[in-house]
């Protein structure tokens, strides 16, 4: 048992501190993974940069490359949280109370970007600029009810 085990009543069992060799290997591996992913992201960023120089570039292809960059960023987030912050070593209960609420982001991102796009579509109509339509006066169908003059 490690000497710091007695200080906290909330902790039922402790992780044995990793042996220095295995630990350094893991940290080094994660550092290399994060750096390589960043370099790939930069390379893709330059691909987009040079594609933009061509006036008839493919918008769909650029969107695809951007999607790849987003997925690579999520991979980086996974490694930072899982390895550097050791969330992967915690008990499942703790992992779930952190990760499950973050799923709200899936809906937030979809809903708000959709709304932004709808806003753009509205911006490109004459909505907001055209004169307010005259109020149409519709004659009531049964204006002449018996008893009312």
């Amino acid at each position, binding site marked *: 048992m490690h000497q710091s085990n007695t200080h906290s009543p909330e902790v039922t069992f402790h992780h044995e501190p990793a042996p220095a060799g295995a630990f350094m290997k893991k940290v080094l591996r994660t550092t290399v993974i994060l750096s390589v992913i960043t370099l790939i992201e930069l390379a893709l960023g330059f691909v987009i940069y040079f594609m933009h120089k061509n006036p008839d570039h493919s918008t769909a292809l650029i969107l695809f490359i951007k999607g790849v960059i987003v997925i690579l960023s999520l991979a980086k987030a996974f490694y930072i949280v899982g390895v550097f912050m050791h969330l992967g070593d915690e008990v499942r209960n703790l992992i779930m109370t952190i990760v499950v609420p973050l799923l709200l982001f899936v809906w937030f991102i979809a809903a708000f970007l959709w709304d932004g796009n709808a*806003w753009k579509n509205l911006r490109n109509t004459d909505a907001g600029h055209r004169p307010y339509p005259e109020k149409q006066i519709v004659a009531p169908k049964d204006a002449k009810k018996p008893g009312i003059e």
Partner: protein
Amino acid sequence: MATAATADTKWWGGGRSPFNVEYGKLMMWYFLMSDAFTFGAFLISYGTIRFSQNYWPDPNHVFNAFPFAGHANLPLAFVSLMTFILIISSVTMVLAVHAGHHMDKKAVIKWMAWTIVGGIAFLGCQAWEWTHLITGHHPVLIDGVVSEIGTTVSRNPWGPEVPGMMHDGMAVSKTGPVAFGGYFFGITGFHGFHVLSGVVINIIMLIMTINGVFDRKGHYQMIEKAGLYWHFVDLVWVFVFLCFYLL
């Protein structure tokens, strides 16, 4: 063994914490989760406004400068440097936490000091980036007159180019969406403030380590909590880097 204990322990049977972490560390995790929602809200708001515009400045065009490189066109170069500085300072923080587990005071001091150096280097880079953006003036056609303006929260010179119009050898553009500067300075500023407070926390931890506070306590758990915060700052930068520079 840790794995066997996880499987056999009745976590919800009462009498023990179902999360198996010290209270302060658990609260740090929940604080970071709430902070993730704050940053997420900012970035999603930025995305919404960007999606609502017909024109948005190209980051490769706006952020193409490097200190002491003059007017050389170097897109993505400076921000990659900043990204690597933050990744490396995250690694030195991991090493400080690890040294703390082994009660190795000297190593904790060494790695905390390097982490602080990384944080300060990042802040210096950001200060340069902001200064360059605010003071770098570009010719813009406003009400039929060419004026030279920098990027602030209320002015944006990065609009679409006016075809064929030049001013002192530079292409003249229209004004761009004002929200660009507001979101850039707002979100990178909020992140930079996190880095600054992280550096301050790390300096306090370093002083406490030097004074032997954690040796007397018998554990280096405070370093672990400061480490969580510091890694979170790196994590947020992954997404700020993504949203402002790559996409």
